[in-house]
Every structure is written in C-alpha cells, then in structure tokens.
C-alpha cells in the first residue's frame, strides 16, 4: 500500500469534524448538557451547605420535662437556642426524622443535682441519619458545657482549682488548609470533567465508525487512494477535537458557576484560578485524546450502530465509576493508582484542586499512558478498517 499521506489524513480529519459539527442538534445538546451540569452541581453544593449552616444556627432544642431543669433551659436560651417545650410523641418523631434530637430530663434531675448525684439527661437521636448529625453534636456540646459549668462552680465552692479535674488539655489541630477543606466538596468537579471527557466522545465515535458502515459509505471510501491508517488517524483527530470541546465547555461551565456562587461566604474556601485551570487542562488534554482512540477501536468491532452504542455507553459508565473507588477507599492508594486510566486522572485532578505538590512521576503517567494507549488503539482501529471482513460482514 502507498505511504502514509499527511494531506489525505488532514482531508479526512477536516471532513469528519465538519460533518460532526453539522449535526447541530446532537452536538448542541451534548455541549449544553456538559456545560449545564457544572452550574447545577455548584448550585446544589451551595444550597446544601447553606441549609446545613442555617439549620445549625437556628437550632431549636425540644426538651421534655422542662420543669425539672429551669436553669438548663435558661442556659440554652442564653446560648441562642430556642426551646421547644414538651414535644409530643418525641421518640417516634425523632425516629421519623421530624425532630433531629430530643433532650429528656429525668424526673429525678433536680433532686439528684441538689444532692450532688449524677443527674440524668437523655439525648434521643437517630444516628443513621446524616443530616441530623450537626444538630446532635451542637446539642450535646451545649449540654457538656452546662455540665462543665456546674462542675467548675462546685469545685470552686470546695476550694479546688477546676484544672485539677482536667489533667489533659486536648486540642485538635486540623492540618487541612482551607483550600483542601473546600476541595473535598468540589472533588465532584474533577469527577464531572472526566465524565465529560468520556461522554463527549461517544456520539462522535459512533458516527464515524458504525455510522460510516450503516450509511454504506465505507465501501466507496475504501476504493479511493485513502489508506486505513490515514482514515484511522483522521477520524481520531476529529473525534478528539469534539471531545476536547466537551471537556473545555464543562470546565468553563464550572468556572462561570463558581464566579456567581459565593461559596467563600459559607466557609467553603475554594479558588480555581489560572494555575488550577492549567493543571486541569494538562491532565484532561491527553485524556481527551485517549478516550476517542479507545472508543474508535471498540466501535469498529461492533456490527451495528446500536450494538456499538450500547457497548460503548455501558463501558464508559463503568469506567466513569472508577473514581468512586478512591472516593470510598479508606486506605492509602497504592503506587500504581495514578497509572490506571481515569482513576489516575481523578487522583491528579484532586491534587490540583488541593493545591498539592504533584510529583513529576504523576505527570509522566498523565502523558505516557495516553500516548501508549492511543498508539495501540489506533493500530487496532486501522487494522479493523483495512480488514475486508468489515465490508463483508455488513
């Protein structure tokens, strides 16, 4: 066969890109979907964080048997907590989630307190419900504070320094920088960027492989001087360009959303500046070129567009879930973590978000794996295109 012609390859790439972009409807909807997902996620985060902090601020304490502990009630009121005295059916309502927690004062409370015996208070909670957790911890903190206050008073009355009862001074020092704490919430952003990089290529890859066969244009095409490898590279470049567009759009969607939502006000410090954007692109560009190559190789194996669509769609969704492993995993990631496609990208993107130092070896992984992957996938794709069975097997 004749040598690889760069001109013909570019002709193929230009035609495919042009043809793909002509499909306004599907391109528009795909780009719209990826660009809107960013703002939606950021908006949701904002909303969730806001309601949580509002609820904690405006905590009301349902208390049963207020008459036995008027001092405690006053203490709580002074701390800015509203009192909801004598709630009905409180056990049931805590269970159902209508109440986050209920304080029950023992009928013996006043007497026990006066006699210096431990006075009993029960805090009813439902620990499997995450959304109640901040309120439960606020209430138990306040009860503890009240207990400490009384304890201190008693010791002073007896002429003992309160410090005697506190042999240890325990302080928590959270090493997470503000960026890191914010990043934990916005990890979702890297998840979405990768998702865009996976999903942005599917429709285009199908169109230039199974679509070409279904439209019966592959046979005429192969009677021209164009070679299988020129076709493979040209198609790959065109699909990659579309994919890159999807990834960039999704990032820009996020950036615009972050500009408008005052996450910082809610104590979620997060900055996504030029440096973070560059870091993201340095990870996502090679990724955006790798995914189409793999899809093209896989798509050309399928006999019909439908078959290709379901297998690619499923493959992409499964692979897209890989980062969840890192999300759930409690242990240190193994050394090869960054060398696993998708997973590795996710890990490095997270580091970018956390403004962490990224070792050079990570960058090697971000580029070497895609390059090797592209070469192998394109070899498979081009071999399939050149195989006469592809025509025969219509």
């Amino acid at each position, binding site marked *: *066969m*004749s040598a690889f012609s760069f*001109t*013909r390859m570019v*002709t*193929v790439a230009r*035609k495919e890109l*042009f*043809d793909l972009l*002509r*499909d306004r409807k599907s391109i528009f909807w795909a780009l719209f979907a990826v660009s809107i997902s960013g703002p939606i996620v950021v908006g949701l985060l904002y909303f969730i964080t806001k309601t949580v902090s509002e609820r904690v601020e405006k905590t009301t304490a349902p208390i049963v048997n207020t008459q036995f502990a008027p001092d405690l009630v006053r203490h709580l009121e002074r701390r800015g907590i509203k009192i909801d005295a004598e709630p009905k059916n409180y056990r049931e309502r805590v269970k159902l989630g209508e109440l986050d927690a209920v304080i029950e004062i023992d009928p013996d409370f006043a007497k026990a307190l006066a006699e210096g015996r431990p006075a009993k208070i029960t805090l009813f909670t439902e620990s499997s419900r995450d959304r109640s957790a901040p309120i439960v911890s606020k209430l138990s903190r306040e009860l503890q504070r009240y207990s400490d206050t009384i304890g201190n008073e008693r010791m002073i009355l007896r002429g003992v320094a309160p410090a005697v009862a506190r042999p240890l001074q325990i302080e928590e020092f959270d090493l997470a920088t503000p960026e890191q704490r914010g990043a934990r919430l916005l990890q979702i952003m890297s998840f979405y960027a990768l998702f865009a990089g996976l999903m942005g290529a599917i429709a285009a890859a199908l169109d230039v492989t199974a679509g070409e066969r279904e*439209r*019966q*244009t*592959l*046979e*005429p*095409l*192969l*009677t*021209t*001087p*164009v070679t299988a490898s020129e076709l493979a590279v040209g198609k790959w470049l065109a699909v990659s360009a579309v994919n890159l567009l999807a990834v960039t759009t999704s990032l820009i969607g996020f950036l615009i959303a972050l500009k408008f939502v005052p996450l910082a006000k809610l104590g979620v410090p997060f900055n996504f500046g030029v440096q973070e954007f560059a870091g993201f692109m340095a990870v996502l560009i090679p990724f955006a070129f790798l995914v189409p190559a793999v899809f093209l190789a896989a798509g050309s194996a399928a006999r019909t567009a439908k078959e290709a669509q379901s297998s690619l769609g499923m493959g992409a969704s499964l692979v897209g879930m890989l980062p969840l492993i890192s999300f759930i995993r409690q242990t240190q990631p193994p050394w090869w973590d960054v060398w696993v496609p998708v997973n590795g990208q996710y890990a490095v993107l997270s580091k970018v978000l956390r403004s962490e130092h990224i070792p050079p070896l990570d960058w090697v992984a971000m580029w070497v794996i895609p390059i090797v992957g592209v070469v192998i996938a394109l070899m498979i794709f081009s071999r399939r295109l050149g195989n*006469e069975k592809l*025509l*025969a097997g219509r």
Partner: protein
Amino acid sequence: MIVVDTLTKKFTTKERTSAFALRATTREVTAVDRVTFEARDGEVTGLLGPNGAGKTTTLRMLSTLLSPDSGKASIDGADLATQKAAIRRKLGVLGDAKGLYWRLSARENMMYFAKLQGMNETDAKQRADVLIRELGLEALGDRPTQGFSQGERMKVAIGRSLIHNPQTVLLDEPTNGLDIMSTRSMRDLIRGLKAQGKCVLFSSHIMQEVAALCDRIVIIAKGHVVFNGTPQEVLSTTGLASLEDGFVKLIGSDEGLFA
C-alpha cells in the same frame, strides 16, 4: 483496459444450528470461480448474471476491496496484487454500496472524494461543477443529501466516482431502482463515457439493459463465466430469437432471473 485471469474468491461462513449451539459449522462458498475476461478502452463491457452469481464479488476484487484467493488481474498494466494504490487512482467505482454523507451537500460529497484522489481545490471545484451540470443536479447541488430521492442519490454517487475523471469505470448495477427517465440518462452517461474512450465495466441482472449498451457481454452464473462475446453471438450460439431466452439458456436455469 481490464484484464482478468482466473480470478477466484472463496468465502467461509460460520453457521450455528441454533442460538445455543456451542460449535459453529463452517461452510465454504466459492463466489467467484476462475473468472477470466477482458474489458477494453472505448467499449462498454457488461457483466451479466442472476442474483448471487458473483458480479459484486468480482467488481469488489477489481476495486481492491477484497483480495482474490487466486488468479490475477490488471488495470492498464497495474497489477491488482502489488499495485493497489495505483489501481485506486485509475479507477472510478460505483460499487454495491452507494451511501452518501447525508449531512453534506451533493457538492461536498464529491469534493471529499476529489481531495482524497489528490485533486487540488480549484480543479476539484471545476470538475464538480461540470458533473453537477451533466447530471442535472444544479438545483440540488448545495442541499444536504439527506432528503434526496433514490435517483438523485444515485446521481450524486456516480458523480462522486467520476470526480477524478478516471480512465476505467466500474459500475455495479447502476440502474437499480431508477425509473425509466433516470435509467435513460444513466445510459446516456455510460455512452458518453464510451465516446470519451473510457473503459466501462458494468454489472446487471437484466438482459435488455446489457443488450442496449454493451459491446461485449460476460455472462456469469454460480461464479463461472458461461459466455463471453457480443450480443449478436448470444443469439448465434444459442440459436434462439430473443436475447432473454438466450440468457436463460446460457445460465442453465431461469431461477433468480426475475428476482
């Protein structure tokens, strides 16, 4: 000029007796069996045969899409086995598959193939204009081919295969699905190619079609060449009065003829 010498192509097909059968039985079909003929420049050669005779397979081998299992062929001296790239430049092919890119216009479809054939922008544009005029596609040239009728699509497909002004033209059932008017204009086009001194090889399963156009007829049945000569000779060798009867006699049965 096309020279075909004992060209043979076998297909192996895998068959499963049931959806749950573990083993597939392979079956071998000889689609084209030692086919030999010549098609000369300035002549129209018809490849005639019933359904499944091996016409498409023969044309696919000549257009380098399938590689023969044995035998040789050459086009203007370029060997099919060793000079595929040269052959692809010499040939204009309207194959069995005649699909178009439906989001592209008729002109864009033609221009894509022109560029792949190595033509520059100006030449390609000029040539596309000429073909669009000759094919009567002026009103449709810049519309996406999506809504085109079958005849209109066929015209675009033939324009695409002639875009680089090839010396040798292979046409696989070029009048399939066309109405009388379109069939006539397709015949005129083929006669025009002949007048320009091109070598035209076209396949059909309709005797009249071939008789109306061809200088030479190659009849194949079940992969074998059963006749090779002029329309006149069909009558003289069979001793029958009508070409159609002659054709039926030559292929040895009338099954599949009217399919």
